[in-house]
């Protein structure tokens, strides 16, 4: 008993000694923004705390629009977004803000059709038709054509979509604009849009909830929500005409196509890419940082973290169904990170 107690005391003492609080001050870095990459970011901050004990990250997943607003107002040290900043927003910020791509993810179409045993096939025409309210029944000829031999029920399609503004919506409507002229002129793309049809659910979990509880419904969510909730998701026909089920490999294939000629500001949309194996509804997610950091110490810590996240940190992506950045892109991003002044 005594031995145990001594052991316990010694371990507490050594723990204390190993804490940096005695030698160095812990620096707190605040960030806010996108919910889409939140699971990955929190994993990163957790792992990074083990590597550099002098820094602590605090990330609030308030949504992409919120992240952009907060970084412009300089209430946070970094922002996070799934939709790039508009020219107007950059003007508001006054100083140069860098978009640093961290990872990419997929938006998947989830559905609840009890009769269906096989994975549903959906083409761009079908998705835009359903979300425009033009294809209204599951046994529509057009759906049947893409799913030969599948017994589709004669039921009305119930569309579910986000009621709140969201980066997920941005990626999805970006895709619809890319593949459908009618969508582009009637609805457009944005973090929230004027939906022609559909029930609105709040958050990815809201949409997943509607689809889970409503037979004959279809909706879109970030891929990890589909897997968490055990919902069926569709294969989507890509530009090359192949039906692709969303996966880490299929997202990676989509990035690789675009990474070949990536613009210097990384503001690129990766929806509807060329590759044969690419899943067509994917998007990058970015961290937003000022090129000129105000605080020398914070700036240094932030840069070190960014370097770690795009290199060693990438190994945590796949488990959470995000695609790691390809090597050539990592090199390019590291060059950009070097430009941050502090």
């Amino acid at each position, binding site marked *: 008993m005594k031995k145990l107690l001594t052991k316990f005391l010694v371990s507490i003492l050594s723990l204390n000694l190993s804490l940096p609080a005695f030698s160095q001050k812990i620096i707190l870095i605040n960030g806010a923004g996108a919910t889409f990459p939140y699971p990955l970011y929190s994993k990163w901050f957790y792992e990074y705390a083990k590597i550099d004990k002098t820094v602590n990250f605090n990330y609030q997943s*308030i*949504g*992409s*629009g*919120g992240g*952009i*607003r907060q970084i412009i107002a300089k209430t946070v040290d970094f922002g996070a977004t799934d939709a790039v900043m*508009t020219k*107007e*927003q950059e003007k508001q910020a006054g100083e140069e803000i860098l978009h640093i791509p961290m990872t990419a993810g997929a938006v998947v179409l989830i559905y609840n059709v009890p009769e269906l045993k096989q994975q549903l096939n959906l083409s761009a025409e079908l998705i835009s038709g359903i979300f425009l309210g033009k294809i209204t029944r599951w046994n529509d000829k057009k759906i049947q054509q893409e799913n030969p031999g599948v017994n589709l029920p004669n039921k*009305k399609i*119930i569309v579910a979509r986000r*009621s*709140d*503004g*969201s980066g997920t919506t941005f990626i999805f409507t970006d895709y619809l604009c890319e593949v459908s002229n009618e969508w582009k002129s009637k*609805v*457009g*793309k*944005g*973090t*929230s*849009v*004027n*939906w022609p049809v*559909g*029930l*609105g*659910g*709040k958050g990815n979990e*809201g949409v997943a*909830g*509607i689809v889970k*509880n*409503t037979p004959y419904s279809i909706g879109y969510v970030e891929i990890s929500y589909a897997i968490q909730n055990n919902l069926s998701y569709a294969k989507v026909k890509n530009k090359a005409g192949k039906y692709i089920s969303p996966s880490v490999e299929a997202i990676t294939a989509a990035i690789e196509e675009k990474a070949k000629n990536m613009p210097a500001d990384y503001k690129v949309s990766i929806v509807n890419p060329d590759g044969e194996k690419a899943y067509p509804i994917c998007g990058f997610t970015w961290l937003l940082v000022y090129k000129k950091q105000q605080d020398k110490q914070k700036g240094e810590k932030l840069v070190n973290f960014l370097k770690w996240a795009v290199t060693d940190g990438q190994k945590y992506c796949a488990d959470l169904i995000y695609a790691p950045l390809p090597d050539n892109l990592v090199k390019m991003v590291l060059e950009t990170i070097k430009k941050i002044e502090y």
Partner: protein
Amino acid sequence: MKNKNFADKTFFSITRIASIFCLVLIILLFLMLIKESLLAFNKFGFKFFISKVWDPVFEEYGALPFIYGTVVSSILAIIISFPLSLGIALFLSEFAGSKLKEFLSVIISLLAGIPSVIYGLWGIFVLAPILRGYVEPFLQKIFGFLPIFSGEPYGLDMLAAGIILSIMITPTISSISKDVFEAVPRSLREAALSLGATKWEMIKISVLKPAKQGIIGAVILGLGRAVGETMAVTMVIGNVHEISLSLFHPSATLASVIANEFAEATTDLYMSSLFTIGLTLFVVTIMLNIIAKFLVYSTTRKYKKLL
């Protein structure tokens, strides 16, 4: 002696500051809402309140679908809740023994204390499937010719919002009605009974009639709560920015659109439009509350004098 006087005065001024703070808070809130809504109001003017378009991509904002959704869902809630609440209040004040009355009163105040997100969750997971699977198809089968029961039953719609709201406002309406009934003096009841009235006649003549204004006040307070309720409604109403006669059609309310879209309102005009909706909601609820308080007060005061 002097010291004691000083303590009294200090205490008095502290409490006075605290109560003035309340008033200042409301005024500041109101001014902030006006300031933030100016941009949208200057751009759209009164058209904002009659336009049906809410399009963040093309920057066109109109609040009519939300005003409609708020009005209809709240009225629906009152229609469902009013008879129920009146029954509860009458039973408690006229029939229940003192022990049962105490017990039921606690239960009712418990209902009022449940966080609205819990009602919302119950709405999504229990109420909506029941409505979609049984209640709505049944209503449609019998009353399908009526436009209010037309369309596809989703379960997440105006009817679900109305039902959730009615449950949430029942404690408010019933407990205030009960207080109003109890404010009516015993002597009025005894007079009716001594003239040979039955129990039902007595309630009609010496409880309901004198308490009429107070009941209306209670209903309006309930209405105020229904109008401003956010979370539970957002979760069950379906969040569609359209106006439809059918109760089976999803809708949206002033409060739900703010809850949904505030975090991602990226442009100044978008933000300002949401503030204008907030201002509308603020004015409507304050007006409803003032009217209700006045009505309840006038009933209870009338009989206090009699006593």
